[in-house]
């Protein structure tokens, strides 16, 4: 009786392991780490003021650490958006720093970023 239960248990574990492997395979692979970027954009429009810029910055900086830890890139526009949040929070230097990073990572942004930098200055 006990042996039978033991075998059933083992089978269950095996099944669980198989499912876990399949789920792992099916996980979507993206080029970039998106983190909370789009959700924060949504929240800031859907419920303006519900998440203050400081908390959005915190969330994005956390995402950035997670991206770096796994050696992955953050998406286009991401650093410019973070720069914009720093600007809203009154942190001009960090804002400019993030805008420059955007330009360095994605040269396509140069014209727009230079314009934003000129506005901040």
């Amino acid at each position, binding site marked *: 009786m006990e042996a039978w239960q033991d075998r059933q248990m083992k089978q269950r574990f095996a099944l669980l392991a198989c499912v876990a492997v399949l789920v792992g395979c099916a996980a979507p692979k993206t080029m970039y780490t998106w*983190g909370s970027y789009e*959700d924060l954009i949504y929240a800031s*429009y*859907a419920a303006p003021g519900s*998440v203050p810029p400081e908390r959005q910055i915190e969330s994005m900086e956390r995402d950035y650490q997670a991206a770096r830890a796994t050696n992955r890139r953050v998406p*286009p*526009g991401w650093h410019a*958006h973070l720069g914009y949040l720093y600007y809203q929070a009154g942190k001009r230097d960090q804002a400019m720093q993030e805008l420059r990073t955007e330009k360095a990572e994605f040269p396509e*942004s140069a014209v727009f970023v230079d314009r934003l930098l000129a506005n901040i200055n």
Partner: protein
Amino acid sequence: MGTSKVVCLAALMMIAGCANQPPYDYTNYREHPPRSILVLPPLNESTAIEGTYGYLSTVSMPLAEMGYYVFPVAVVDQFLKENGMPTAGEMHEISLAKVAEITGADAVLFVTLQQYGSKYQVISTTVTVRAKAKLVDTRTGVLLWEGEATAKNGSQGSGNILADLIAAAVVQAINSKTDPAHGVSRQANSALFSTRDRGLLYGPYSPKYGKTN
């Protein structure tokens, strides 16, 4: 009986096959391949005012993952507002020359939301997002691509798995409670941009750049 059923089925399948649209003509697109896309907040023809931003906050991911530089949508929106364009309607009137001057974008994506939101019916509630879009070359004004897609609720929140995992709980609560069409927008985008032979071509940052979708 059995055979006639099979024949009928085969015929139906052929009809369904014939009904497929022909592939999109990508001649202009291939002649002016954009690196960067500026997405304007969508024109909202639906009755749901939350549609504009419910949609706008789902459009960066699919375009960037297809290999394009996507300008930061909220920053662009804010910039245009501060420069005399307070509504999406006014932003859609902007001249392409002005877009090129301000942003240096290779192409502009104009999206129109035709339907956005829930329809409450006796038995169930349907959440529908219907959108059409056109991609225009900023320097020449040539139409590179246009498409249209509809998505209905089905499996909600799919496509948003990554974001859901990492996003703050407060944000998630706002998402699912107040605006279910927000999640459906992602499905609409996937149908709009990624449908084989009808969607967008891969951009330069994609490992599939130069291959058909």
